[in-house]
């Protein structure tokens, strides 16, 4: 697999070697239950306390505001369901966007069945929400605004700080799904006025099955996983000590390296975008050209279908994606691409290249060599292409 070119870092990232090294003691000798009183348990407790401090520091939060979860999806579910059930006497209206991840959208669909009302803010052709739309959507019954920090498919970065400010003015809780933004955008939850933030470790070279939810001090939301007194009594379950330790170091590393990463990946990204636009006709860059994640490249190529494209790239040992990972295998075109106004047939033909710190210019050059050939080959096969 040495010659694999991995361009799907928005789906998941390799676990960093040094992060795994930090986890290893807790996967071997230091197996104690962190709630236990004896030495080997206290050692796990200490590791978790330190990890929580580390995470808090990276986000500009207090340690007491960080809760470990099993991933981005659990964090999103907890934030939304926990807040809405705690505040349902205050109102039943939630504002979100049309381009959220399914962990948000499907959670809200479930709440709609229970009588909550949801406003899905539209986005423009670049995937940006409008702050005016947000203002206009607010009602007396609005209890939650949840807007993703950056979109997982098209990479557009939303105006979170402004949105959070509006929420604060109106006394509405503000949550952001920052799963894709972590390590790519500088985030300080206190300064930005964010009430809740979700993150997922495997998106920044941490372990799979680990996430965190930041909950601002004083904000009361209902528990989601009830049971033991772990996580200050707010999230039950024996602590995944190696996972927690891994998440914390991966986050530290990715926030410390953010300037360098943004600089490197932005250059690679813009180089690739420019070349693709130059060499492949009938293509469209999806997402905002500058307000976009440094690692995200998303194109639609007319007349061809995304999965075929991915398979052909795979045969050249290039791993990329079309839409989000968890919808491949589905027949529906991406709701995000439809939301930015693409017709169905064009939405079906999209390609997402998501770069990670480990990617190189040489790898981009391989892509730039193979991609035009593959697109052309598929177009020759397409009944829609008259070229």
């Amino acid at each position: 697999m040495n010659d694999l070119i991995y361009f799907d870092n928005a789906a998941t990232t390799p676990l960093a070697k040094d992060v795994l090294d930090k986890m290893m003691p807790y996967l071997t000798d230091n197996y104690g239950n962190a709630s236990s009183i004896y030495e080997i348990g206290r050692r796990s407790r200490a590791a978790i306390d330190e990890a929580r401090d580390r995470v808090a520091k990276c986000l500009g939060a207090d340690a007491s505001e960080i809760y470990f979860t099993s991933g981005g999806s659990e964090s999103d579910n907890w934030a939304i369901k926990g807040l809405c059930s705690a505040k349902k006497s205050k109102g039943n209206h939630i504002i979100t966007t049309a381009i959220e991840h399914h962990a948000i959208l499907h959670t809200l669909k479930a709440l709609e069945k229970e009588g909550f009302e949801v406003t899905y803010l539209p986005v423009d052709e670049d995937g940006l929400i409008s702050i005016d739309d947000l203002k206009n959507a607010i009602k007396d019954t609005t209890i939650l605004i949840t807007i993703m920090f950056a979109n997982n498919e098209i990479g557009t970065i939303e105006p979170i700080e402004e949105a959070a400010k509006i929420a604060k003015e109106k006394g509405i809780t503000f949550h952001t799904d920052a799963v894709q933004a972590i390590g790519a955008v500088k985030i300080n939850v206190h300064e930005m006025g964010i009430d809740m933030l979700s993150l997922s470790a495997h998106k920044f070279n941490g372990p799979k099955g680990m996430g965190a939810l930041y909950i601002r001090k004083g904000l009361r939301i209902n528990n989601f996983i009830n049971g033991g007194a772990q996580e200050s009594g707010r999230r039950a379950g024996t602590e995944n000590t190696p996972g927690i330790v891994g998440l914390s170091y991966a986050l530290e590393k990715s926030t410390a390296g953010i300037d360098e990463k943004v600089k490197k990946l932005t250059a690679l990204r813009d180089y690739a975008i420019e070349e693709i636009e130059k060499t492949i006709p009938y293509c469209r860059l999806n997402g905002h050209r500058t307000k976009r994640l440094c690692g995200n490249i998303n194109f639609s190529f007319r007349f061809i279908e995304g999965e075929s494209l991915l398979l052909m790239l795979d045969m050249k040992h290039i791993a990329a994606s079309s839409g989000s990972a968890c919808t491949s295998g589905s027949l529906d075109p991406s709701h995000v691409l439809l939301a930015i106004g693409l017709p169905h047939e064009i939405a079906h033909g999209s390609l997402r290249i998501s770069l990670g710190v480990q990617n190189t210019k040489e790898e981009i050059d391989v892509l730039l060599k193979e991609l035009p050939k593959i697109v052309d080959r598929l177009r020759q096969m397409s009944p829609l292409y008259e070229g």
Partner: protein
Amino acid sequence: MMYSEKVLDHFSNPRNVGEVENANAVGQVGNAKCGDIMKISMRIEDNIIKDVKFKTFGCGAAVATSSMATELVKGKSVDDALKLTNKAVMEALDGLPPVKVHCSVLAEEAIGAAIQNYYDNAGIDKKVKKGCDGCCSSCGGHDEHHHE
């Protein structure tokens, strides 16, 4: 979701891509909205499919089923070709993932549509039975789904 070796083979080296030049039987099914379009063209002589080619806009399974279906009907009589079921196409490909079953249905339909077109062109008063009767659940959720 995993494709068999056969599917990957027919996807990466599809047989019979293109359009038959002096075709007398052309059918197209699926629509771009659903993400799958198959167009099949044939040259039918003396009730025998002398030549057959396809063009497909669709996923790996759509390409592979098109390729396999054309292989399976090439040189066959029109009546034999009409007996080709989506199941036979799937079996010849060593199976398809459940979400991709509808692609094999499309292939069956495309053959049928081409032959219908041949009947119509030739003034033969026969109706090819529609292959898809909502058999697979894959398309169930799509209100906008219909076979052209």
